[in-house]
C-alpha cells in the first residue's frame, strides 16, 4: 500500500539531470522515488513516521529571502545556484573554504580533500573576496564557518580570521579535525587572539575502533587533548559526529554523555547522519542510512530516556526536514535537563527565523570566558530553581542533527529553503549540500566548477 504525499524535483544519480520525483509513504516510512529516462528508477527512504513528517510542515518559517540575488532563475533549482531569485531563505551560516589540503586522509570525506584532482589553497586576497561576498549578501549578524580541507594547515589562519572580523563578520567558527590545535597550543592561542569564537570539531566517538574506520587512524587522544587545550585557552567546542549505522550509531549515547562531562568547554554535539557525496566506499542502500527520526529514537534509547525523541524540534530555519535540535541544561550529576519539546507545538513567531538563528548561534555558542574557572563544577544540585538558573547560564548542551542531502536523497523542496551556504570564488552563495553533491562517478554540480579555475 503506497500513498503519494508530495511532488518535487530531484537529480538522476548517474547523469545529474533534473527529474521529477514523488514522495510516497509505505509502511509508515517516507520515500523519495524518481525515474531517469536513461538510467532507471530509484526509491530511497528519507523519513520514518509519516504523521510526524507531515506535522513538521507546521513548523515551517515564513520565508525570508535575500535582499539581492546573484543569479536569475533560468533553468530552475538546482541549476541556477548563486543564489537565484527563487531561493526562499537567506543565510544563517556561510561556509568559506580556505584550502583543500588536509593533514588526514579519511576514507569518508565530503570535500574529497587531498585527492580531488585540483589544488585549492587561495591567497589571502582571494579569501578577502570570499568574505566580501558574505558582507555583500548577508545582513548582520554574520556567521562564517572557515572550512576546507583542513583550515588549520594554514599558518596564516589567524591573519585570515582577523581580516574577517575587521570586515564585519561577527562570529567565526573553525571546522577542524583538531590535529593541529591538539599538538600546537601556541597556534591555538594565536587563533584565540585573532578572534575565533568556537571550533566545529570532527568527533566520531570515544573509541579508537571508530576512528580507525572513519578516519583511518586512532584519533581519540588527539580530540581529548584538543578539548583540554580549548578549555585552557578559552574557546568553546561543538563536537561534530558523522553517524553511520555501519560504524558508530550504537555509540551516540556515549558521545552525548562524554560531551556533558566536558561542559562548559563543549557547547554542543552536532550529529550528521552519513551522506554519500565526495569520498565514500560504495553506493548506499537504505540500511546504510539513518534518518533523523531514527537517530532521535536511538538517542532516547542510548541515553535511557534522558533525552527523548520529543525533545528534538526543527530549527525552522532550514527546511523542517533538514534538521532537529535540542537544548538541555547539564545538571551537576551530568544528567541533562531538556528545555526543548515538541509538546509545546509550532513556534509562535516563524518569521525572520534566519536572523534569530544567526543571533542564537552567535550568542549562545560563544564561549563565556568567565565560566572557565570551573567554579560551578563542585556545585551540588539542591533541586531549586535558583541552582537551575545559575547553571543554565553556562552549563548547557545542544544536541542537534542535520541530514545533508546527497544525489539520492536531495530534492528541490529542501534545497530552496537551505540557509547554510558555501561561498564560491566568483562571488556566489550555493547551498552546502548542492555544493558538495556528487554523482555516482564523482562528478560535482558546483564544487569543481568553482574551485578548478
Amino acid at each position, binding site marked *: 500500500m503506497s500513498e503519494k504525499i508530495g511532488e518535487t524535483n530531484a537529480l538522476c544519480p548517474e547523469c545529474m539531470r533534473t527529474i521529477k520525483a514523488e514522495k510516497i509513504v509505505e509502511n509508515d516510512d517516507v520515500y523519495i522515488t524518481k525515474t531517469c529516462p536513461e538510467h532507471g528508477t530509484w526509491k530511497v527512504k528519507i523519513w520514518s513516521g509519516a504523521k510526524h513528517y507531515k506535522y513538521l510542515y507546521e513548523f515551517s518559517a515564513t520565508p525570508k529571502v535575500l535582499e539581492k540575488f546573484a543569479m536569475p532563475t533560468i533553468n530552475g533549482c538546482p541549476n541556477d545556484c548563486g543564489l537565484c531569485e527563487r531561493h526562499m531563505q537567506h543565510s544563517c551560516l556561510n561556509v568559506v573554504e580556505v584550502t583543500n589540503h588536509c593533514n588526514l586522509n579519511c576514507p569518508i570525506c565530503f570535500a574529497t580533500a587531498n585527492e580531488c584532482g585540483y589544488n585549492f589553497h587561495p591567497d589571502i586576497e582571494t579569501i578577502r573576496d570570499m568574505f566580501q561576498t558574505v558582507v555583500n549578501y548577508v545582513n548582520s549578524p554574520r556567521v562564517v564557518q572557515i572550512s576546507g580541507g583542513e583550515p588549520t594547515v594554514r599558518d596564516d589562519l589567524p591573519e585570515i580570521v582577523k581580516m574577517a572580523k575587521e570586515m564585519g563578520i561577527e562570529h567565526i567558527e573553525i571546522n577542524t579535525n583538531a590535529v593541529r590545535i591538539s599538538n600546537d597550543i601556541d597556534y591555538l592561542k594565536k587563533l584565540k587572539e585573532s578572534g575565533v569564537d568556537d571550533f566545529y570539531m570532527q568527533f566520531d566517538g570515544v573509541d579508537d575502533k571508530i576512528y580507525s574506520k572513519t578516519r583511518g587512524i586512532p584519533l581519540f587522544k588527539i580530540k581529548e587533548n584538543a578539548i583540554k587545550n580549548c578549555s585552557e585557552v578559552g574557546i568553546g567546542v561543538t563536537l561534530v559526529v558523522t553517524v553511520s549505522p555501519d560504524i558508530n550509531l550504537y555509540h551516540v549515547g556515549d558521545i552525548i554523555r562524554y560531551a556533558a562531562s566536558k561542559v562548559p568547554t563543549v557547547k554542543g554535539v552536532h550529529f550528521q547522519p552519513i551522506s554519500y557525496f565526495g569520498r565514500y566506499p560504495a553506493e548506499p542502500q537504505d540500511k546504510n542510512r539513518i534518518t533523523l527520526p531514527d537517530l532521535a529514537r536511538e538517542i532516547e534509547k542510548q541515553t535511557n530516556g534522558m533525552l527523548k525523541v520529543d525533545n528534538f524540534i526543527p530549527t525552522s530555519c532550514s527546511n523542517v526536514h533538514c534538521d532537529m535540535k535540542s537544548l538541555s541544561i547539564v545538571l551537576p550529576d551530568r544528567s541533562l535537563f531538556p528545555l526543548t519539546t515538541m509538546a509545546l507545538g509550532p513556534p*509562535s513567531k516563524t518569521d525572520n527565523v534566519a536572523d534569530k538563528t544567526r543571533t542564537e548561534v552567535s550568542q549562545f555558542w560563544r564561549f563565556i570566558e568567565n565560566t572557565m574557572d570551573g567554579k560551578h563544577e563542585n556545585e551540588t544540585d539542591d533541586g531549586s530553581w535558583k541552582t537551575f538558573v545559575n547553571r543554565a547560564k553556562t552549563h548547557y548542551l545542544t544536541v542537534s542533527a542535520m541530514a545533508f542531502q546527497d544525489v539520492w536523497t536531495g530534492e528541490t523542496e529542501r534545497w530552496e529553503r537551505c540557509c547554510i551556504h558555501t561561498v564560491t570564488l566568483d562571488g556566489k552563495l550555493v547551498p552546502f549540500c548542492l555544493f558538495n553533491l556528487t554523482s555516482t562517478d564523482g562528478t560535482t554540480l558546483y564544487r569543481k566548477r568553482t574551485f578548478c579555475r
Partner: protein
Amino acid sequence: MATISAAAKEIIEKRGLKEKDVIGVVDGCGDDKIYNKESKLFIAKKEIGELTVYAVFNEAGEVQTAYSHKMKILDIVLEGETDSGWVYCKNNQPLKNGHTNLTYMGATRSGPSLTEPVSGESWFEEYLSVGALTAAEGLFQQKRA
C-alpha cells in the same frame, strides 16, 4: 478600597501588572493574607489567569509593591524550622522558612518559601519571584518562541 503608592505604581507598570488586579488582590483577600508585625506589612496573593499576583501592603491598605510568577505553586517539600516572622491571618499560625515545589512547562523544582504547614499554604517573596523564578520562566519561554 486599597490604594497604591506612587513607587508601587511605577513597579507595577514596569513588571507588566495591572493596577486593578493588584487592588483586587488586596480587596478580595479577607483573612487570606500573612502579616509581619515587625515591618507591619501584609502579603496577599491570588491566581489571575496564568499568573500568581502578590500585593505587599501596609495596615492602611496602601500597596507598597507587587510582583508575580507564572509557575504554579505545588506542595511544601520542606516545612522549615526557623520562624520567618510572618503569621497567617486566617489561622494565626506562624510561617516558617521552608521550601515549596513550583512547576512550569512540565518542569518541577523547589524554591525557598514562607510555609504554613497546617493549611499547606506557601508564599514566595519578592526577591525570588523577580529573580530566579522570572529568569527560569524566561528561559523556557525563549525556547518556545
